[in-house]
């Protein structure tokens, strides 16, 4: 029979991978701390409108995972939190975590009175700056925890304090200080996920120069009901419906100058996003410029479905440049057309750059003895127990593969604490 189980696991990152590792370990009988750097859980998938290939809402699965946390006292989570130090050895680590001040305490009932009172606007990072929130805001409607937060950079502080006045529940503390907490764990799982590759490095593809060039993650926010346009896909230049849209695959991925790997999900993401557009605009025409169409496994069926749509055209070839069309405000896409031969130059209302995933660890290394590859991905050492990496922290993958890996990482974390 198994030994009596004790022990606590630290999961760094509260996205789909971290949540999965946490609830799976907790439901097996272990205590878990989740440390999330953002103001709410859910990570990148919370920003997605739908998942491929089912076209189902990510919030559906997130809600179940939040329910699992609600019902399981073994999961403790901290938002606006970052791990500062990890010392010790497998089975016995000392952890310190810095809690950034939320300036809203647990008295918050999410009644929204503070937002009505707040006079300051800030760019909404959840929507990639495409709209604004007040300086005090709910991260998004499905936020878990359902608690407001103050953007310290935007907030005018004590000189304003209108929100403090408006709050009946003493939930706002403009003088909240950062705090450092410490606890002990037996093992650590890094589920630190990814950021969208910085499209401003893709100037040749018009990002930041041509108004109607957006990224695939911006498209997710446009299409989402809780996005900047309440779900309506529009051209950023004039808010009008696009009639022709180009998808630019491998925008930064499979490119020695940017990300040397393939980001795994972008082909499927663009196929999925073509359904968003086609659903809203039945006459819209879409062209997908690609190197290889990567729809592995049973995703092929989804590719077949899109290929059957006569309004979607596929051109095999890398896009060389995108510029703004001075006449229309649209975009001019110049690309190879390998199968047709030669170079094509086509005008579109809008271009979507299928930008890839970059591990968060590309920019910021973690406070642990870890090795990273040329792209900043964590290289796991199979012979070193105690500290693990999971999901897109390790290599770019889709959601379901991340969840499998995260479930397995829960077991690796548990094994560290089992004394046989």
């Amino acid at each position, binding site marked *: 029979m*198994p*030994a009596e189980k004790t022990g606590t696991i630290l999961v760094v990152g509260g996205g*789909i991978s971290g949540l999965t590792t946490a*609830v799976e370990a907790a*439901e*097996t009988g272990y205590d878990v701390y989740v440390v999330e750097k953002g103001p709410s859980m859910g990570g990148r998938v919370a920003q997605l*409108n739908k998942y491929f290939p089912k*076209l189902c*809402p*990510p*919030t*559906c*699965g*997130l809600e*179940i995972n939040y329910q*699992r946390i*609600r*019902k399981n006292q073994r999961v403790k989570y901290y938002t606006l939190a970052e791990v500062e130090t990890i010392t010790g050895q497998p089975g016995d680590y000392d952890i310190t975590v810095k809690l950034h001040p939320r300036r809203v305490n647990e008295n918050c*009932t*999410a*009644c929204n009175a503070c937002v009505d009172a707040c006079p300051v606007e800030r760019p909404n990072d959840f929507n990639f700056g495409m709209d604004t929130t007040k300086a005090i805001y709910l991260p998004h*409607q*499905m936020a878990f925890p*359902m608690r407001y937060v103050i953007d310290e950079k935007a907030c005018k502080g004590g000189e304003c304090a209108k929100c403090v006045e408006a709050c*009946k*529940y003493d939930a706002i503390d403009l003088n909240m200080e950062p705090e450092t907490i410490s606890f002990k764990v037996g093992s650590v799982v890094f589920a630190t996920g990814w950021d969208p590759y910085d499209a401003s490095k893709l100037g040749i593809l018009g990002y930041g120069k041509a108004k109607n060039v957006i990224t695939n993650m911006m498209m997710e926010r446009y299409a*989402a*009901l809780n996005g900047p346009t*309440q*779900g309506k896909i529009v051209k950023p230049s004039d808010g009008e419906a696009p009639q022709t849209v180009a998808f630019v695959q491998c925008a930064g991925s*499979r490119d020695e100058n940017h990300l040397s*790997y*393939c980001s*795994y999900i972008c082909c499927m993401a663009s196929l999925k996003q073509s359904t968003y557009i086609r659903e809203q605009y039945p006459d819209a025409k879409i062209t997908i410029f690609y190197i*290889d*169409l*990567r*729809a*592995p*496994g*049973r995703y092929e*069926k989804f590719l077949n479905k899109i290929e059957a749509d006569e309004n979607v055209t596929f051109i095999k070839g890398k896009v060389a440049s995108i510029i703004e069309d001075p006449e229309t405000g649209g975009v001019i896409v110049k690309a190879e057309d*390998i*199968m047709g031969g030669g170079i094509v130059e086509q005008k579109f209302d809008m271009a979507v750059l299928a930008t890839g995933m970059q591990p968060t660890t590309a920019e910021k290394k973690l406070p642990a003895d870890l090795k990273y*590859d040329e792209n900043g*991905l964590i*290289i796991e050492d199979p012979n070193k127990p105690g500290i693990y990496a999971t999901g897109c922290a390790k290599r*770019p*993958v889709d*959601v*379901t593969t991340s*969840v*499998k*890996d995260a*479930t*397995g990482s829960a*077991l*690796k974390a*548990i*094994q560290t604490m089992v004394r046989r």
Partner: protein
Amino acid sequence: MENKLGVYICTGCGIGEALDIEKLTAMGPQNGAAVVKTHEFLCGEKGSQIIQEDIKDEGINTIVIAGCSPRVNFDVFDYPGSLVERINLREHVIWSHTPNDEDTQMLAEDYMRMGISKVKKMELSEPHIEEDLTKAVLVIGGGITGMTAAIESAKAGYGVVLVEKEDKLGGFMGKLHKKLPMQYPYAKLEDPGVEAIVAKIDNDPDIKVYTSAEVGAIAGQPGQFDVTINTSGGAVNAKVGSVVLATGWKPYDATKLDTYGYGEFANVVTNVQLEEMAKNGKIVRPSDGRPAKNVAFIQCAGQRDPEHLSYCSSVCCLTSLKQAMYVRQQDKNAKAYIFYKDMRTPGSYELFYKAAQDDAGIFLTKGNVTSITEDGAANVVVEVNDTLLGAPIKVAVDLLVLATGMVPTTADEPILNLQYRQGPALPDLELYNGFADSNFICFPYETRRTGVYSAGAVKMPQTIAESIEDATGAALKAIQVVEAAAKGIAVHPRAGDNTYPEFFLQRCTQCKRCTEECPFGTLDEDEKGTPQPNPNRCRRCGICMGACPERIISFKNYSVDILGSAIKAIDVPDEEEEKPRVVAFVCENDAYPAFDMAGINRLQYNPNVRMIPVRCLGSVNTVWIADSLSGGIDGILLIGCKYGDDYQCHFAKGSELANYRLEKVQETLDRLALESDRIQLMQLAINDYDKIPSIIEEFMERLDEIGPNPYKGF
């Protein structure tokens, strides 16, 4: 336990300003409450302290909290040992309806009555723990996936029974010459290293291995599976707690491919045959045994082809790149040609593709194979057009390799041989081309047989690296389910739920609806057809409860009677008042949060609808519809998850079954010349909250056309 009821009404977040709280308070004593209190900040420290004190000092053990959604402040209003019912006055009443309006007040009062009547009928549940539980894991399949699942389970301290069909462990990995690189920089092939893994298993006293063996039968339930293993020496029995299905794949039968010369020309082989040659030390031309110098590979030999395998096998591009490296390593002057549709080396394996591209002796191009012939020297002549070079290509090679795909072992055989009333195999695998996959992107280990988890290539085509991760995840789930069985609690999605369905079998008519409809095959039958519960297979969705025409299935806190009492608690105004009443049975997992979102967005909708959250739409018993109609309710809505091939129901079949049952009810109503449109099922995803006002309005308009329920007032 005698119920002692306390009712606590929060007046914060605008509730106190939008409703007549005095009236709501007066409803407490009218409905048998020993204590009624209001507080302007019930979720605050002082508010929750009031409840704590009443539990301690007044002996309150049945608590109604009227305030915000149960989806928030779950940690505040958590009183172990007490029954707690949350009434959602905030999101579902005041945020969605006109303040200080007669209809809004009536809605709030109905919700008070409904909540109180429900909780008064509830009982605290004790977990049901079976005796003689075992925590060992059965792993079926001794390839890399099965071996990994076995080793990882054992490393966590659990015993393993590993069953392998062949006479030794290793599976396809044991037949490989080299494997793909497992880690950065993903450039060099690695030794498969199967011997070391097998040795680890042989030396692990917690892993019992049966080779040349197959699973003849699995009976029982999680924590208590009885397994019959057919070995060469006869049948052996084992007791295990859970199962990992890791029986992998078979190569697609290349003789079915009529266009590539397989079986016709001696020097056309499959990728599996090439691997075998490489493992045996020499890649040769089968026609004459001479070393193969120039080798061509055709990708998607059967895959991505509706005539053969409609899916992509994920690993064949990588395999051909690997095998092209074998060809080049055997002879540095050799050439390898790979003809593909799309080069699929997703993720970090792009770096491996790059490594192959860096070798000038490996020639890669997209292309369509137009002809395959044989020349006088038994060379295979391959013609390809639509290539990246623009012009057609013609090459004569020593050997042509067909990159054939993977067929899951579950495509033709049940393998598990479950002794379940619903049959021996995992159901619905045709949805996944025969793979033992999950329908859920977020929950890839969900199968419709509790305690059975698939991993590796039997689940989807995947690489060794992915299979190892998948196997580790499946091992965790296998461990988790035996731990849940030991505590008598449910696994996902109602993880931790300690209620379970109880059957009042004296009244059972053996109609078999429950045994047929449970999506998880929980119930077996005796020879008369009486259901035989297996609580550890149960997910607590209540679909059996919805199915039972005799209403003999109930949970301590969820039953036909409990929810029926909520329906009866609705105050139905007379016809003259022109206030129609609608009961909406709402899936608590997706539709209920969508209504919360509607509230958060202050979307306004018709106040004549009374929502009753249900565990799953499949748990809705049609008697509730009859109760509603006979009580004068004008319309009934069932709001739940999308069904069909891409179903979103967390209990797989719940909303689909609800729809099926509803159609039957509608037929009956039509026969009785009653308007079946009074009852409708709506599919609503969690993010469809914007549609709520309009779907309710359309339904109300239809009701208006139909007119009031003729039973009203009887």
